[in-house]
């Protein structure tokens, strides 16, 4: 195997950590990973973390309950700012959800071996992020009980959705993405579920894992079918990585609002999405490997690679910012020029500057090998990048709306308690799902790790 290997004479290659710690056998891999789920006692830390995130999920339920009782007026939105936190959070979460599919599908197709130990939880994270994101388009409508009007169901009135609206494209893009991600994740889980079924001691666990394993016996035919299915799904998921955020970016670029109406949005949104997605994977991987002692599986090599992806996409995003700025000025369109001035000098200028600091300046540290290999720095940086990406969406969604065409209608936006409660609630829900996931499913793919053991040992030989 030489794919992805740097030239052997590189001075760094000697320090480069492998994708799998030394001395692992099939048994040690299986033991180690399945033990997290099956045999190791649940730690106090898990319970505390779960309790906190569960309470935040509770807050989310309360916030949504109150929202359904009173209406979207409990949020800070108004005329002219019709979209606030709900849409900011939606775009942010969907963006985060991008890393999973990218890692699983694109890196799989590109035969990047280092994806193996992070793909499972990255995919899980994708699903959970999509779940969090999926809440928002529904609840942000004025009449959520009528939201099904957005689906092309056979209505007795003979009315269809309005297909020219990007919001309809969203419905299809996000639901397709959610479905494919779920299938991809589940198919990948099948051999591991079977492993857990076989290793489970308690009867209920045996039954549940058994049912989920769908009769997996590990026969050669199974493996054959499994691999072609996995490859097909990877092929299906790959365009979705690019399409979902492109479609979401069209929500903005199809409109005529200055600051939204830009052709650069689709690639720029996709890069931003991958950027924030990788940041989120790092934010999860670092505590995960620490808590469960998985340093051998999620090695510095992984972190290093992910940091590089972050740096690369971060630079694309920076390029996007620059061109957004440049095109606005260059176009000579008075509304666009005004918008740029607003971003730099308007009442929300601090947000724009923080966004530049978070998304462009901070990641430049990643050029340094030292920084990429400092786990603490990486973790903090991943959080900063995620904050920055959230700010980016805030700047795009909210600030563009505050001052558009007619000066008499200009306004401002301030989130309310319920805006924050909903946002923090989804973070809580996301973390809670991650906690549940690491507790009941193998966070690292056992089957693929065993493959990796086989391959690395082959290499050695």
């Amino acid at each position, binding site marked *: 195997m030489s794919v992805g290997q740097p030239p052997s004479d590189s001075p760094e290659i000697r320090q480069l950590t492998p994708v799998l710690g030394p001395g692992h056998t099939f048994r040690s891999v299986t033991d180690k990973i399945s033990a997290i789920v099956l045999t190791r006692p649940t730690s106090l830390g898990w319970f505390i973390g779960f309790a906190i995130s569960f309470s935040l999920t509770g807050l989310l339920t309360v916030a949504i309950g109150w929202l359904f009782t009173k*209406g979207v007026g409990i949020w800070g939105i*108004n*005329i*002219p700012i019709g979209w606030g936190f709900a849409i900011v959070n939606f775009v942010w979460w969907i963006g985060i959800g991008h890393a999973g599919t990218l890692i699983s599908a694109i890196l799989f197709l590109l035969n990047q071996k280092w994806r193996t130990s992070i793909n499972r939880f990255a995919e899980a994270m994708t699903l959970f992020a999509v779940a969090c994101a999926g809440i928002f388009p529904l609840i942000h409508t004025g*009449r959520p009980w009528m939201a099904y*009007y957005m689906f092309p169901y056979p209505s007795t009135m003979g009315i269809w959705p309005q297909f020219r609206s990007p919001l309809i494209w969203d419905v299809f893009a996000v639901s397709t993405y959610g479905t494919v991600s779920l299938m991809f994740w589940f198919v990948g889980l099948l051999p591991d579920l079977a492993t857990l079924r076989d290793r489970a001691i308690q009867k209920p666990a045996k039954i549940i894992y058994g049912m989920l394993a769908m009769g997996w016996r590990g026969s050669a035919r199974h493996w054959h079918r499994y691999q072609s299915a996995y490859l097909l799904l990877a092929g299906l998921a790959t365009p979705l990585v690019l399409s979902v955020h492109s479609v979401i970016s069209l929500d903005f670029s199809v409109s005529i609002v200055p600051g939204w109406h830009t052709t650069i949005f689709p690639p720029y949104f996709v890069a931003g999405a991958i950027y924030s997605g990788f940041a989120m994977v790092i934010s999860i991987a670092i505590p995960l490997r620490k808590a469960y002692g998985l340093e051998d599986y999620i090695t510095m090599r992984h972190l290093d690679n992910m940091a590089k992806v972050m740096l690369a996409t971060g630079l694309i995003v920076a390029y996007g910012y620059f061109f957004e700025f440049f095109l606005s000025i260059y176009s000579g369109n008075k509304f666009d020029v005004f918008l740029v001035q607003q971003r730099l000098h308007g009442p929300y200028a601090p947000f724009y500057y923080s966004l530049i600091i978070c998304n462009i300046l901070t990641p430049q540290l990643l050029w340094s090998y030292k920084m990429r290999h400092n786990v603490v720095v990486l973790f903090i940086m991943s959080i900063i990048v995620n904050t920055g990406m959230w700010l980016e969406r805030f700047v795009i969604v909210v600030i563009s709306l505050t001052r558009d065409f*007619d000066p*008499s209608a200009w306004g*401002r936006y301030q989130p309310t308690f319920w805006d924050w409660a909903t946002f923090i609630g989804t973070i809580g829900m996301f973390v809670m799902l991650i906690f549940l996931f690491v507790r009941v499913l193998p966070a690292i793919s056992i089957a693929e790790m065993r493959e990796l053991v086989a391959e690395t040992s082959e290499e050695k030989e």
Partner: protein
Amino acid sequence: MLDLSSLTDCMSAQRQEEQKDDGRALDEHLEDLSLTQRPLDLAAVRAQLQSKTGKQYWRSLEELADDPNFQELLHKEFPRQAPSEWDESVDRRDFLKLMAASLAFAGLSGCGRAPEQHIIPYVKQPDGMILGKPQFYATAMPFGADAIGLLVESHEGRPTKIEGNPDHPSSLGATNAFAQASILNLYDPDRAQTVTKAGEIQTWAQFLDAAQALAVTLRATRGEGLRILTGIVASPTLAAQIQTILTLYPQAKWHQWEPALGDGVLEGAKLAFGSYVNTVYRPEMAEVILSLDSDFLGSGPGHIRYAREFSRRRKLDQFAELDRLGGEMSRLYVVEPTPSVTGSSADHHLPLRASEIELFARALAAKLGLGGSAAMPPAVDKWLDAVAKDLQQYRRNSLVVAGEQQPAEVHALVHAINAALGGVGITLYYTEPVEARPVNYVESLRELCTDIDASKVDTLLILGVNPVYTAPHDFDFVSKLRFDERNNRKKIQTVIHVSSHFDETSQYCDWHVAESHYLENWSDARAFDGTVSVVQPLIAPLYRTHSTREVLAAFTDKPGVSDYDAVRDRLKAASPSVDFEKFWRKTLNEGVVASSAFAPMNVSLKFIPASLPAAKESSADELEFLFRPDPCIYDGRFANNGWLQELPKPVTKLTWDNAALVSPKTAEKLNLTHSIPSRGGEHGQILSNVIDIWLSGSKVTAAAWILPGQAEGVVVLPLGYGRKNAGYTGTNKGFNAYAVRVSNALWAATAPSTTIRKTGNDYPLACTQYHFNMEGRQILATGTLEEYRKNPNFANEHAELPPKELSLYTGEAEFPYTRDKWAMAIDLNSCNGCNACVIACQAENNIPVVGKDQVMRGREMHWIRIDRYYKAESKTNDPSSYDASLDNPETFFQPVPCQQCENAPCEQVCPVGATAHSAEGLNDMTYNRCIGTRYCSNNCPYKVRRFNFLRFQDWETPQFKLLRNPEVTVRSRGVMEKCTYCVQRITNVRIEAEKKNEPIRDGAIVTACEQACPTQAIVFGNANDPSSRVAKLRAQQRNYTLLGELNSRPRTTYLAVVRNPNPELEKA
């Protein structure tokens, strides 16, 4: 009309019956309770059984006895008196008694029927009434020394919408915001609903008894100690009624108090002519108009007509030659201390302190050779020279108008100037006063207070006014009514108050009679030119309310005369020679008593300007505090009217509060500022400094608002706010300027600047438009007449309209709109920002009131908003000149309804197709399809869409259910709404036209905003019909589209503002 009167008769008869029921004591109920214990008449039972043939089933012996009491029990769930008992508030004791009674009856009547109430179908449908079709009745709204002629829309007997009466001289078919909103007063749930005595509910009969008993004692003393306090009386019938009282009780006295009407008008006339006369202006005849602090286009008697007349002279190459009197565009100069609607329409606007206006008038008189002299600062002098020259040039066609709040001297000077210019008989004329008895209001009230303090008053009737709230604070009117604890007595034995609400005054009065709304009882009223209208009721009183005339009649020997008879009799007496029935019907139908307007009067000037004593010196360092009626809630009488409270004030755009208006320079000196919080921002909430104002020995705490264009050193304290007992909507809003208003400084008080102290706190004000700069965009196209002549197309010069060929959808034909193509043109040259259209739209389209908190979040619901912009350019380099952008900016208004874009950005983005285009080019909203994504609003460049963020409509209050227009959906939460071009009106007309198979003629469809507009600035019609007014306007070069470069292709277009400045002043 006959049907309506019979309907009201029927209803009032029913009410009287109910009142009789009320009179019965509760022990009668108890008698009912015991009815089952009455001895059974067995003989009767036997007789009963024998009398029947065939099979009979009987439930109890009592039934057979056919006992009427039992029959009643059987058929009613509650005994006879109980339902009426619920009408009133029930105290705990009565409630328990009733509960016990109900329990006792439960066994007997648990399965009984609902109470028997007679519903009567139209066996014969009344003439002209078709269910579902509204009817219109002519009536009039009395307001100050004016009455606004109205046509009121009635749906199955409930009035829902007010329109102007085209036949009425003061309305000419238009209305103002007050008239539009007065319908909400009718349905105000906080109105007083019955007669009370010391807070206890009484019947009208009890009041009548009490009044008659009082009358007996009063008659013995020839009315000694009887005082009547009313507001202005312009109703001949009420005046006659008061006269009857005064004849009956010769010692009685009649006082009048109006807090917001200036005495200067009448006193000035007296000074000039030796008697009270009324002045009627003819702005359309004037080439040059100078307003000295007069808001004659925005308030005061006749202002709706004046606005129309003035606008006729401001329309350029107008479609209807008939409507334009030829001649040049007129020119308006306005000198005023604080910007008004009139000042904002001016060609030249000069801010001067109120006290300097008298000097200005003197200087002008001197310039015109009337003698006297006054020195003005050089900048003003230059201005004055130009104005004097202009006035002299046109002489007979010039007009000078003095403001209501200006003192008598200014009015007298203006009379002299007008006489000297020769405009009398052309641009203005004099008539006898409109008021039944003109008085100096403050002196009248002072006399009453002196009499009360001298214990000369035993009985006081306060009719329709609220002196405890509105009287000058040095009169301390409360002390006149309150129990005097020191002397252990009441100063006045009996105080009877008649008012629509149980207000600040009512709580100190012995009797309170709920006053009927003007749409509930018969009356009459005189308009600004003397024309008499009969005020027809549209509905029988909703509650047990009565008119002031009825209350007065209670003290005569004919207490039972109805308002209807009184009005009819008076009219009959006034026009004896005609066939009265015919005349009466014609009068009611037209809303105007034919040829009742006063004839112009010849008056001779008995005033020499030079004879005026020297003007009071006022130091420029002192602050001048001006008291002005609020443009939205007037003197406080509309405080509980949610529509008017939420209506952005024309110039400041404030809602729900008044604020001490401070000029920019003064604010700088006093270190007052505004700040914009994130919540709401420019479109909603502004934090302003709170100041304490120590004035006339009293203090008031107010929020300070910096108002560009206000004269330096002037602080305006708008009246009408800070009410303590106005109702749910109006209580404790803003600050009470009456608290620092004293009788010798009713309109202006001067005080050193130390009277204002910053408290250090900030107060959030709900302002719907704080940003007043156009940011270099052509939102509003403006130019001068000269520029317009040179280049009539100036408005479209810089418009970068994208060519239609650039469309991506090439080959696809444009939708042809072959049938009707609805469009609206708004002439910005005519719009003076008066707000009538905003309320008209609110009333027509069931638009909810959202409250201050929601306005502060930027969520007000008005479908049409009036944007106000200042032109920020300095015309001269002279820093001392008045044209600096903040100190005297040019002000413009722009009404913005939905632009009904042909290429609507909102339609593209709606995911469910809830907003779509109609074949006539309307941008329609389907409420029940809308899921509320708000994407359409984001994409609307005009931000005219309004979203129901919460459930803003009041679905519970029964009164509001009566108010609503049945032709317009009442929206619930979560849906988007916006201007529909009054699609319900379009559809109504279209249906009629299709039935007759003829095209819709121009002018048949009138949108609510168009109908209300006093200046006819808004024109709606079919753009496909080249002869339509709107098509002609659209063909004008002045016509431009708002933000046309976006390719939204709006159907609403604007006609650029063209001002007519004096070249002499321009050059300077």
